[in-house]
């Protein structure tokens, strides 16, 4: 499977994948307990070059090539974490987590609660809709984020990849770390240097006056394009990137509601049961009086993803769909 990048890149800055390398490298240097396990990591550096060169720098005891045994991979990370290490289990595509669901949901997520002891474990994978068809494009964000005991980071740019993975590697908790496959090669500036970025803090990516679109990961770029178009009509839309889905920055959501009363929440998961529902429903309970009308959700269609590119593009939020949603809230 290959991936596509249709977002502009600037060559001088690190790519999204390289930012992951940077963050992991920095943490590995100071923390000898970190090691990485996954398929094709040593020579190839992972399918998205996300750990390229790290085995060469830190040795093969800290970057291990795994057989195709997802259950054992996560179990290895889990048991090692319980022993005191801080493993990164690289599942390549998040779809492959299906083979390790008990290890993730029933074991890793629950162990601290059950036994009162830490589980410092990062599970990294690519996510999101791209080419390749139905088996490689599952949206599992809602499932993981709604599992008590798991946290979930889903960065949209190199800077956030770096800062969030550094945080993930400093907390003694299981973290799901999802990197959108279509963003792998996108370059952008590291603005926060060697600093970790806290979970649960949204990022306002574009200022607005009239309404807000709340989103994350690849859909952010669709939202920004929509905002550009809307600006031409005189509608100024703030675009907010949640960056982590648990913890979730409810304060940022509430602030957007209070400021504009007109909010769109967008994500590429099939709309029915997407996290956009949770965000909208709970924010509505909290801030109904500040809303000029109901929050409008934009999501994917209820269908598996076709391998045909026109179809896979049409299955997720489009610029046109996003503009329509903003028009809807502007009518309130």
């Amino acid at each position: 499977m290959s991936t596509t990048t249709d977002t502009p890149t600037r060559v001088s800055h690190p790519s999204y994948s390289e930012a992951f390398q940077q963050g992991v490298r920095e943490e590995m240097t100071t923390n000898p307990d970190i090691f990485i396990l996954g398929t094709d990591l040593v020579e190839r550096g992972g399918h998205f070059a996300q750990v390229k060169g790290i085995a060469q720098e830190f040795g093969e005891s800290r970057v291990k090539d795994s057989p195709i045994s997802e259950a054992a991979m996560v179990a290895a990370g889990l048991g090692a974490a319980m022993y005191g290490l801080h493993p990164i289990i690289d599942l390549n595509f998040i779809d492959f987590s299906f083979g390790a669901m008990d290890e993730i949901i029933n074991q890793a997520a629950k162990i601290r609660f059950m036994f009162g002891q830490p589980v410092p474990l990062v599970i990294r994978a690519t996510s999101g809709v791209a080419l390749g068809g139905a088996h490689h494009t599952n949206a599992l964000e809602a499932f993981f984020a709604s599992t008590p005991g798991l946290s979930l980071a889903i960065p949209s740019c190199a800077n956030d990849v770096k800062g969030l993975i550094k945080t993930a590697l400093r907390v003694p908790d299981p973290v799901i770390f999802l990197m959108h496959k279509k963003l792998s090669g996108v370059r952008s500036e590291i603005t926060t240097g060697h600093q970790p970025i806290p979970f649960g803090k949204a990022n306002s990516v574009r200022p607005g006056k009239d309404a807000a679109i709340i989103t994350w990961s690849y859909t952010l770029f669709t939202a920004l394009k929509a905002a550009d178009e809307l600006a031409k009509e005189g509608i100024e839309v703030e675009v907010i990137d949640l960056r982590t889905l648990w913890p979730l920055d409810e304060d940022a959501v509430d602030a957007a509601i209070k400021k504009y009363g007109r909010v769109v929440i967008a994500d590429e998961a099939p709309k029915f049961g997407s996290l956009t529902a949770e965000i909208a429903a709970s924010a509505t309970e909290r801030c109904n009086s500040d809303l000029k009308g109901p929050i409008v959700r934009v999501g994917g269609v209820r269908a598996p993803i076709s391998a045909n590119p026109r179809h896979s593009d049409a299955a997720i939020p489009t610029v046109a769909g996003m503009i329509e949603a903003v028009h809807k809230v502007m009518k309130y």
Partner: protein
Amino acid sequence: MAYTDLQSLLREMLVIREFEETADKLTLRGKVPGGMHNSSGQEAVAVGVMSALAADDVIATTHRSHHHTLAKGFTPNEIMAELFTKATGVSKGRGASMHLGDFKRGHFGGNGIVGAGVGIAMGAAMGIHQRGDKNVSVGFVGDGGLNTGRTWESLNMAVIYKLPFILVVDNNQYAVETFVGRVTGGNDPAKRASGFGLPSFNIDGNDVLEVQKYTAEARERAVAGEGPTFINALTYRYNGHNVGERGQYRTQEEIADWREHKDPIDRFTAYLLSTGDMSQADLDSMKASVHAEIEAAVAFAESSPEPDLSTLTDGVDSGLLGAK
């Protein structure tokens, strides 16, 4: 594809090779969304197995499945069109390279997930068993799938219910860039399988007649109610895991050695010429007709329409439960 004579085995291997090399180039030119997994070098596994099966036998396979699908009797046209994600493709353009299939013709699908086809094929064998039918089901998996737990769960299930099931390991020795010996405890697939209580064989997957023979014997046992067989067919993939990939994980010498000395097509061609089962003239005309067939498939794929956007969410379920 009907394998009525020895020449038809060779012809099918040539079709696969030409299909793959052609599709590979087209992929590099951007014609195949998502890329493809080239099976060049592994033709004898696909053709050897399929030539021992009956038309109503079932297969389920992997992400690398063009060769199995062609050998099962699907046309280059419908497969090439599927690679192009065209409406005329065997999966109506929804599947591309990894998701070829048509249950009505006994093909229960390629698969994006390592090991998943084993379970599906085992389930088909359970279906056959329930119905009392006299056909068999074959699951394909790569060497990488030897370390996936469900492969063994499924094999065990086939053993205890004595299902008419054959598990074929299309063992090209690498999972992406990982050598099988490095990640496979014991590194003896047949020994590993035999611990689950079924006849298990490591065979030469580049010898089409050996593959055919072991499959035929396994099929006989299965139809006779004697249960499943495990066949690990040793072979080699010439190209990168996905189109355009190279990597440093194996030497050029190793590749050259397999290509030059162990190629399944060259070996079988030499054999047929030496026994007189085929003349040089037969071979020449065979190659020409294969070439024309694949060229036609490309033309068919190119000229086929894309699936209509209005079908985007068609057929997610039967609709009989009333979902809107």
